[in-house]
Structure formats: structure tokens, C-alpha cells
């Protein structure tokens, strides 16, 4: 969820970051290492935010400053993240951490069936919902959002009206990566509470797919993330209830749905598509 929100922001500035997976891994690994060393998962969250941001900044540097191909840079970042976290995380494979605590919301969490599913989570999970609203307001209602979208549509025009496209893109990509880092931390600190190589298992790519599905809207990205996360959770839950479903089939639903969205909403999709995603601005801003 965090990762797709972050990618929405980055792509709104006209930069695709295929390296979300790498940022998530960096965040997950950094969070785990810090949590293991300090004993505090909350410091781990901060580390994840920083690590994810730093990683994405590398992407911003290559793409914005050096004018590198976005797709190549993003993929390189993904593999770099995989290798680096495998290397640095190695000594921590056997180390245990104090995971993030689940907090039940009094009253609501006792509701039958959905109660424990909806109202019994860690702080990161609760925080993502207001964050999505905030980001929606930021993108569509704030002055900063206008600047962000202007840069994403046309760096030239934005530059012409006195904005600094490169700075805004740096900020957007870095912030996006930092959010992806939080997404990684959520896995390593809350869900899995362990570190292994390639912990995120391709979830970063789902995030990228979700952004297209959500048509670059933070709120829709949330709905999509819940839907897709829900599909995976549902198939595991159906199995736990003794209903036979193929886990392989359900694991590909995010991608299938994205293709369907691309087919059906092609025209509307084009309208929402930040035009700047297709090119790289070489101004001096």
C-alpha cells in the first residue's frame, strides 16, 4: 500500500520508478537491522524511510541529473536492492527482533468476523489510511500538488513558469522511495518479523502495476492495494477454511486486473496519464 502510494507521487512528477522493489527491500532490510541492533522497531521504521528514500534518490540522480533511461535505471535499482540487502542482511538472518505490536481498537475489534481483520493491526497499517487521504489532498488540492502535476505533465512548461522541475522530481521520487521503504518495513517488522533474502517477493512490482490500475490517484491506489492484497489474503483464508483454490491462479490476479484495466479504460487512462512519463527533461532547473 505504501509502495503504490509512493509510486503515484513519483509518477505524478513524470518519473517511473521500476525499482520500487529495490526500495522496499532496502527499507525492509534497514528496518530489520536497526530494529535488531537497537531493539526498537520504531527506530526501524525511521531507518526504512531513510533507506528507501536514499535508494530512490539514486534513481532520481541517474534519471533526472544524468538523463538515463528510466526503465533501465529502475530495473538496475531493483537488482541492486536485491543483491545489497542479501549481502548486508546476511548476518541478521538468524537474529530475532521485537516485532511491531498489533493494537486492537476497543469495541470494534470484537465484532464478529471482520472485527479482528479490520481493527487489529500495527501502527503502520493504521497510518496508511489517513496518509492516502492526505496525499490525495496534496496532489489534487494543494498548491504543491499543482506544481507536482505540472512537472509531470510537461517539464518545459513548468520550467517556463518558473518552477524547478529537477528539484520537484528529486523530491517526488525520493519521497516515493521512502514510502516504498515503509512498505518494506511493514513486511519485515510486522507481517513476517524475520529477514530472509528477497523478503518482498515481487510485491514492489505489484505496486507499480497498481499505479496504472489506480490511474495515478492515491485514493484509488489504496482501493486497488486493498483489493489486490485482499485477493492474496482471501485465497490463503479460503484455504484455511478448507475451500480449495489455486494459489497460483490468485497470485496472478493483480497483473490480470491491470491488463483488463489497460484494455477497458485505455482512453480514460490516457487522460490521467502524466504526459511527462514518456520523456526526460534536460533543463537546468
Amino acid at each position: 500500500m505504501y509502495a503504490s502510494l509512493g509510486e503515484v507521487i513519483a509518477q505524478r512528477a513524470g518519473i517511473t520508478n521500476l525499482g520500487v522493489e529495490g526500495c522496499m527491500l532496502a527499507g525492509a532490510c534497514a528496518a530489520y537491522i536497526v530494529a535488531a541492533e537497537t531493539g526498537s522497531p520504531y527506530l526501524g521504521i525511521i531507518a526504512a524511510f531513510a533507506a528507501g528514500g536514499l535508494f530512490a534518490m539514486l534513481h532520481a540522480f541517474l534519471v533526472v541529473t544524468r538523463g538515463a533511461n528510466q526503465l533501465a535505471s529502475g530495473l538496475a535499482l531493483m537488482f541492486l536492492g536485491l543483491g545489497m540487502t542479501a549481502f548486508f542482511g546476511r548476518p541478521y538472518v538468524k537474529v530475532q527482533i521485537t516485532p511491531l505490536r498489533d493494537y486492537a481498537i476497543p469495541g470494534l475489534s470484537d465484532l464478529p468476523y471482520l472485527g479482528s481483520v479490520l481493527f487489529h493491526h500495527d501502527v503502520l497499517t493504521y497510518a496508511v489510511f489517513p496518509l492516502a487521504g492526505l496525499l490525495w489532498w496534496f496532489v489534487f488540492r494543494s498548491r504543491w500538488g499543482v506544481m507536482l502535476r505540472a512537472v509531470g505533465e510537461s517539464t518545459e512548461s513548468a520550467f517556463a513558469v518558473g518552477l524547478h522541475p529537477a528539484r520537484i522530481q528529486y523530491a517526488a521520487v525520493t519521497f516515493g522511495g521512502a514510502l516504498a521503504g515503509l512498505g518494506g518495513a511493514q513486511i519485515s517488522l510486522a507481517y513476517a518479523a524475520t529477514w530472509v533474502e528477497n523478503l518482498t517477493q515481487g510485491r514492489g512490482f505489484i505496486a507499480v502495476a497498481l499505479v496504472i490500475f489506480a490511474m495515478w490517484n492515491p485514493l484509488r491506489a489504496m482501493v486497488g492495494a486493498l483489493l489486490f492484497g485482499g485477493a492474496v489474503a482471501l485465497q490463503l483464508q479460503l484455504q484455511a477454511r478448507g475451500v480449495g483454490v489455486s494459489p497460483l491462479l490468485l497470485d496472478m490476479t493483480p497483473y490480470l486486473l491491470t491488463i483488463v484495466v489497460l484494455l477497458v479504460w485505455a482512453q480514460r487512462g490516457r487522460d490521467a496519464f502524466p504526459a511527462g512519463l514518456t520523456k526526460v527533461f534536460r533543463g537546468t532547473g
Partner: protein
Amino acid sequence: MGILPLHAGRWLLCLATVLAIGLLAVACGSDDESETTDGAATSPAAGSASGAASAKTTVIGFLYVGAVDDGGYNQAAYQGQLAVEKLPNVKAIKAENVPESAEAERVMEQMIQQGATIIFPTSFGHLDPAIKVGEKYPNVTFLHQGGLKTAKNVGTYFGASWEANYLAGIAAGKATKSNKLGYVVAFPISQTLLNINAFELGAKSVNAAATTTVVFTANWCDPAKISESVKNLKAQGVDVLNQHQDCPGAGIQAAEKAGMFSVGYHVDGSKLAPNGWLTAATWDWAKLFVDLVNQVRGGTYKVSQVRLSMADGAVKLAPFGKAVPKDVRDQIAATQAKLLSGQLQIFAGPIKDQSGAERIAAGAKQPEVTSLEQMNYLVEGVIGKIPN
């Protein structure tokens, strides 16, 4: 612009990264990358030369699909390598994170370049690459873990972990209060199905009402999915978890957090669950690896499918946790004795599958291991469907 000073930092990061990757490559044991070009011509000669005189140092290569400290499958096999290394005149080379693809062939050829005459490809999917490389190097012996077929110089070995899971099932059947057990597994391979079935049969032998719910994650190691599955099972009232995953650690911790009992796999994971730990089916490859290496060096090894059991000590039950009371421990010990003496056969008929159909006829003896390893059904009492 304001962010310029950061550029230097980023370059440093790049540099550090390149260094890190370099180190990683070395750590993975592929240190003679530059000499790999024309292997086929030179190394059969090298292989037979060192094979002829067994008093000389024997080089042995080990391939692992994951990391050797994964707290699971690979760690167990690595313990075997360590035992082999203690032999005189032996040099071991290991390669971790070797994918089950043509990459494995390349790694094995490199090991042969370094003089390896015995190779242990330890992952299920390393078998076909080993057979391929074996055709090229007839003087090298390959000993594959878990393989269901052999070649002229490729033998296999494995162990009946399902025997230990039957005993773990007894502990689980006694511990459960809801009579609902859970099993989180990766893929429906026959060895997994054997484990699940034996676990359920073991539980049922002491608790007729016990059922086992299976969840397939379709991944050998995805801790987030494992934890999610554990939560779901818990929500369904399941209070004992067993797993067939390469990295069972996450699941054991999730079960402990949820207040469930837990059965591990591959290695002893009791430290992860001080309250809920029951036991685990674990491997002890040390003796077998040493025996096999000695046979190959002495020229007495014959290609075969070695299948060990609890009786050989290759499959063991991990130490019990405090959640297993004395009387249950005694009962398990008694059952284990019957199992070792052959008095008890886990898959003796009648064995019925989930639909109630009789798969092993009443009165029939337990089939041979090779035919058991073809198992493609779940027994009565297991809830969940085999995905296709």
C-alpha cells in the same frame, strides 16, 4: 542547486555497492570466474587424475539453493558438509543461492575445474543439471538430495521425514484443544503430501477427532505469506501449526505470537517458540555424507537411490518443548521404538483418501519407499485441496 553536495555521497554509495557486489560474488565461491572458458577439454583429465589416487586430497563440491544459515533445509544439509570437511585429505567447496536452472550446471562445471570429483547438488531441482553435467564428466560422482531418478554417475539419497512427522502428529493430537491442526506448505510435491498425511495419521492415532487443514503458499520461502496463513488458520480455530517450508522460522514465530503450538521442520527451532514449541522432523546428514564420500573414495560406491529413515539416524525428532508433557513423551518414545523395529507401519492399509476411497487396501503392507514417493493424494481427515 541546493542538492549538489549530495552528489558526492551518491557516488560513494555507488562505489560501496560495486564493492559489496564484488564481495558477494567471492563469498559465493565463484572465485575462478576468469578461468572458466574452455572447461570441457581439460577437466575430465584433471578429474580422473585426482580420482585415481584416493590418498591425495579429494575435492568435494556442495550446491545449495538458498543460504546455509536459513534455519531450515539448506542449513541442515550444510551440517553434513561440515562433517565431511572433518575427514582427512578432503577439501570442500560450497556454492550458495544456486538456482535450479542451467546456472547450476555452470557452478558444477566450475567446481570440476577446481578438481572436484564428488558433487552434492542438494536441491530437488538440481537433479537434471547434475545429470547433464554428469554426461560430460563420467569420472565425477554426483550425489543428489531427494531425486527420484538416477544416471550412470548420479545417485540420490533422502530420508523419511514423514516418520518423524507421524510422531510429531502424536504430540500435536495430544496438545490440541480445538482438534484442529494446520499445515502450511509450499508446493504439492509427493514428499510434502507424505509429511501431511503422516502428520494427520499420527494425530488421529491418539485423537480420533483431529483434522489437519492445509494451506499452500506456492513459494518455498515467503515469510509474509506464511505469517498471513498462520493468522488465518488461527482465526479458524486451529491451535497447532506444522510447516513444509524451506524457512519455517517466520511461521514458528507467528504461531508463538498467536498463542499456538508449533511443529518445526529441518532444524530445531525451539528457541523461536519458548511456550508453544512441540518438536520437529529434522535431518542429520553427517553420517550418510561421510559414508557416501568414503564409498566413492574407496571405489565401492554403486549408483543407487539411498533412502534412510529414523532407524538410520538420518531423520530425527527435535528436542521436545515444555508443551509436551512427560506421558506424551513416553508414548512417542514407545511408538518410535515400534516404528524402528518395523512393528508399526505408518502407511499400512487401510489408507483412505479425502473422498473416502481406499488407496491402500486393508491388510496390505506399507508400500516400498519408491512407490510411497509417488503419493498424489491427501488422506481422510485432511482439509484442503491439492492445487493443480
